[in-house]
């Protein structure tokens, strides 16, 4: 399955200024993200991480610059060859009037897939995310962690080229967060979408990513590869992991100090 999704994002000279704002949120930002990468966006609050994610998702238009989706053959994506993008927002935002099954199958239904045809894929994902037997539950019957699992399953159901996640685990307790991190990591190594994750947690970024990009003052402050390899079970206890985590936290503190 590895390397099947070949789309690359090329963001060039991205600027974004919201009306009524003195300073632009993003300015002259360059970033290329290759197919199959797991990139975490870190940085202090207000540095433009979420804005960048919303730009990449197509929910915002840049004030300056261009965002290009480049297909494996080098052509710009357009028309019917647009990449499949999935978004996992901070809140699980399930449709309360639909069951877990119908929530997860929604993106497939929007493409005209019949309910019966969607079923194997949906049930498979629910099993992978520990939601087996929950398909007929209503969202209000689920805990916060389970709702987030459903939200992730819904994002993955179309086997997206890009999985964009905006602090999806911020509201969860640490244990749930770790477990979901493990599950997300497993799904990533199996299916290899390109993942872009906005997070405040250095540990989460270090554990999950193949690359960490830090933003500061609306541009890329630094860009660091994370070379722990695909197998990461038990990684959190390793000295190398702890060292990298400490190094990244120190860099972020330095960025913060430079701001004030």
């Amino acid at each position, binding site marked *: 399955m590895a390397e099947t999704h070949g789309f690359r994002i090329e963001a060039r000279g991205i600027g974004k200024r919201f009306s009524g704002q003195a300073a632009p949120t993003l300015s002259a930002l360059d970033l290329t993200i290759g197919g199959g990468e797991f990139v975490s966006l870190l940085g202090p609050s207000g540095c433009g991480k979420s804005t960048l994610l*919303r730009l990449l998702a197509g929910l915002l238009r840049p004030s300056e610059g261009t965002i290009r989706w480049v297909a494996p053959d080098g052509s710009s994506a357009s028309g019917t060859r647009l990449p499949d993008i999935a978004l996992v*927002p901070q809140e699980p*935002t399930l449709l309360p*009037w639909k069951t877990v099954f119908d929530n997860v199958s929604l993106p497939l239904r*929007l493409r005209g897939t019949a309910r019966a045809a969607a079923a194997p894929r949906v049930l498979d994902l629910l099993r992978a995310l520990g939601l087996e037997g929950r398909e007929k539950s209503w969202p209000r019957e689920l805990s916060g962690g389970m709702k987030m699992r459903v939200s992730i399953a819904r994002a993955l159901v179309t086997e997206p080229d890009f999985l964009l996640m905006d602090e999806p685990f911020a509201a969860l307790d640490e244990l749930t967060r770790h477990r979901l991190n493990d599950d997300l990591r497993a799904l990533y190594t199996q299916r290899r979408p390109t993942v872009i994750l906005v997070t405040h947690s250095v540990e989460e970024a270090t554990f999950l990513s193949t690359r960490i990009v830090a933003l500061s003052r609306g541009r890329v402050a630094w860009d660091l590869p994370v070379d722990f390899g695909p197998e990461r079970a038990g990684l959190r206890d390793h000295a190398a992991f702890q060292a990298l985590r400490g190094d990244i936290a120190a860099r972020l503190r330095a960025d913060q100090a430079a701001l004030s």
Partner: protein
Amino acid sequence: MTDWSALMARPPLWLRVALPCLFFVLVLVAWQVIVRTADISPLILPAPSAVLDDLRQHAGTLALSTWNTLLITLKAFVLGTVAGILLAIAFSRSRLLELAVSPLLVLTQVTPTVAIAPLVLVWVGIDNVDSAILLLAAIIAFFPVTSNTMLGLRSVSHDLHDLFTVRRATSLQRLFLLELPAALPYTLAGARMAGGMALVGAVVAEFVAGSGTDAGLAWRISEAANRLNTPRMFAALFLLGLLGVAISGALSLLQYLCLRRWHESAVSRDR
């Protein structure tokens, strides 16, 4: 004592039905006693027993009138609700339309039905009084549906809209899979109001327009008033009240059935 307060905090259905019925019976008994002991003229206030006699003697006519009023109320309700939802959808698609038209709609609501009834009669009611009554009742009924549905359509969370945008949903998919279901609790609350108002509209319109081919309860009341037949007036009023309670109850049931699975308002919570 704690049993009693627990019972009052979450009264079961039988109690919710039994209590108002019991109270109503008490009122009737008191009424009967007062009328008999004070010897009040039946022209002013007939005893409940006299009203019951009249109900029994003219059951056929009154039942037919009740049926006619119910029919026109239901038609007005359906017409008003459908029109109300369509209008709300149109307004939510076009801000221009909303800004231009909605203030005029308020005009139809602040102008009393009684005042516009003669005009509607002139326009549509000359040959067909029934459709004039229907139209008047629908004009009153649509408004709560429109304003509530609009509120509901606007209250859909931005995150859900984003989800549909990222997934490249068509605007019809967005309407039917996201906006209308999200607005449903609001629409149903509006429909409950519309049910009551359709009945009010049907009665007021019949008072003003007179009766068409099928006389409704309002016609029975004004007819009885002309003949100083007070027991008949009470009998018709009683049936009208019963009709109102039935309509309101049916719409509450509909609301409950539609929302019980997922909406906070209908989901009972264990304490």
